[in-house]
């Protein structure tokens, strides 16, 4: 790993400590089985406030089985939060800065998912450390668009060797309030290695009517091309028919009005800066809705993780590339 990445807890006397958020996130896209999933561990709220929480999620969508795994919520003082790790009872994610690895595990036998993954970077890091405006707060992030995985998942009794799977990792931190007028659209689209890894992101308002210009990066081995501003179009259309699994269940029960979310049935990305050209189209097949709650004041955010397939065609540095892969698209409102 080319740099050290640590959690960013608020310093003493930070007036916005209550809005602190820190996430370690990993996506697993297994081209052999078609399974697409995520493992993440996060901290919400001032770590010195007993109401603050640690949340762990391990969810894998397996064709023919549906969503396996679950979400775990603990008080922040009940979780083991280290310098670069968040470990709950059943879900943990850690960055091993010394050995340049990312480690993730989940042990959720009641939810038919066990998973242990070790990841190493297979692309350059994508640091976005400057605070980007998000609602009344800000967000920063650090991503590894492609990571090489080793490990296994036991999903509904079936053993998946993840050595051939693609992976993505990021770390998000900042100060924002769930429930503010904020949202984002983000996606990682990974062809089987050594194919390209695409990452697209933009922040939006809660209705997704206004948004910042999208950023698109394309990593092919050690090479990266970035597109920004007017050179990138991100278009969402249609309405996804797949019924979401909604977690945690208590929050889903509270928000019956969000049981039928209007989510896109297709995402299209087109980037053209006059030199290089990228076109990709994503079709989600399943969705999970994670309800994120503010721990110290009333406020809720809704993170929709859409799992599916994509096709791409691009001209990069004079080379023509095309193919298919697996993707996760996140729609937050």
């Amino acid at each position, binding site marked *: 790993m080319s740099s050290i990445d640590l959690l960013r807890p608020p310093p003493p006397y930070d007036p916005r400590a209550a809005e602190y958020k820190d996430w370690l996130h990993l996506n697993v896209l297994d081209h052999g089985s078609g399974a697409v999933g995520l493992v993440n561990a996060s901290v919400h709220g001032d770590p010195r406030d007993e109401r603050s929480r640690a949340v762990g999620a391990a969810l894998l969508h397996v064709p023919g089985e549906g969503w396996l795994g679950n979400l775990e919520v603990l008080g922040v003082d009940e979780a083991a939060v280290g310098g670069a790790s968040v470990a709950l009872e059943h879900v943990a994610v850690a960055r091993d800065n010394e050995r340049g690895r990312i480690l993730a595990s989940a042990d959720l036998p*009641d939810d038919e998912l066990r998973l242990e993954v070790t990841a190493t970077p297979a692309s350059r890091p994508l640091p976005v450390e400057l605070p980007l405006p998000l609602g009344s707060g800000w967000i920063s992030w650090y991503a590894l668009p492609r990571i090489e995985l080793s490990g296994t998942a036991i999903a509904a009794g079936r053993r998946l060797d993840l050595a051939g799977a693609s992976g993505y990792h990021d770390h998000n931190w900042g100060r924002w309030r769930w429930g503010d007028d904020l949202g984002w659209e983000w996606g990682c689209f990974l062809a089987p290695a050594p194919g390209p890894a695409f990452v697209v992101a933009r922040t939006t308002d809660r209705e997704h009517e206004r948004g910042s210009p999208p950023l698109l990066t394309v990593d092919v081995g050690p090479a990266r091309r970035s597109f920004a501003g007017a050179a990138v179009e991100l278009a969402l259309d249609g309405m996804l028919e797949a019924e979401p699994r909604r977690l945690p269940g208590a929050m889903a029960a509270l928000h019956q009005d969000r049981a039928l979310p209007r989510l896109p049935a297709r995402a299209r990305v087109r980037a053209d800066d006059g030199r290089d050209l990228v076109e990709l189209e994503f079709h989600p097949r399943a969705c999970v809705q994670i309800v994120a709650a503010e721990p110290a004041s009333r406020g809720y955010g809704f993170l929709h993780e859409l799992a599916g397939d994509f096709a791409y065609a691009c001209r990069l540095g004079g080379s023509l590339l095309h193919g298919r892969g697996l993707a996760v698209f996140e729609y937050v409102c």
Partner: protein
Amino acid sequence: MREVVGARRARIRLDDEAVDVRFTAGGSLRVLRPRGRVDGEGATDRATVLDLLDGHVEVVDAILDARLEVRGDADAVARIFVAIEILLDSTARIPALQRLARDFRLDPCRALRERPVRRSRRGSFRPTGEEPDEAALLERLGLRP
């Protein structure tokens, strides 16, 4: 919650256990042995509670599948659901309630968790009119005109 339920008395059933609950004039909650008539009643079972907590079923599915029942006149039923909503909303900010949910899940005195029971809804995900499950529920409860 006290404003919503007032002096009403409700019965809560979980599997084969039942208690009555009501607020006293002083505002504290009293949990009582079931006795006599109550204003409203809610009943479910442990498996349904866990399936709801784990997002395997939605509340509407639990009601349609007769896994969650709330009884009373319309006013009482509405008040019970508002009380539940207040309770759910507060779980996000009250660690003691989160611990209570964990204790319930891990309670060694209760049966082990079985494989989740997912919804059996036959209708569409985005209903546009009366769905077959809704019709069956109304029939079952004798609420068909």
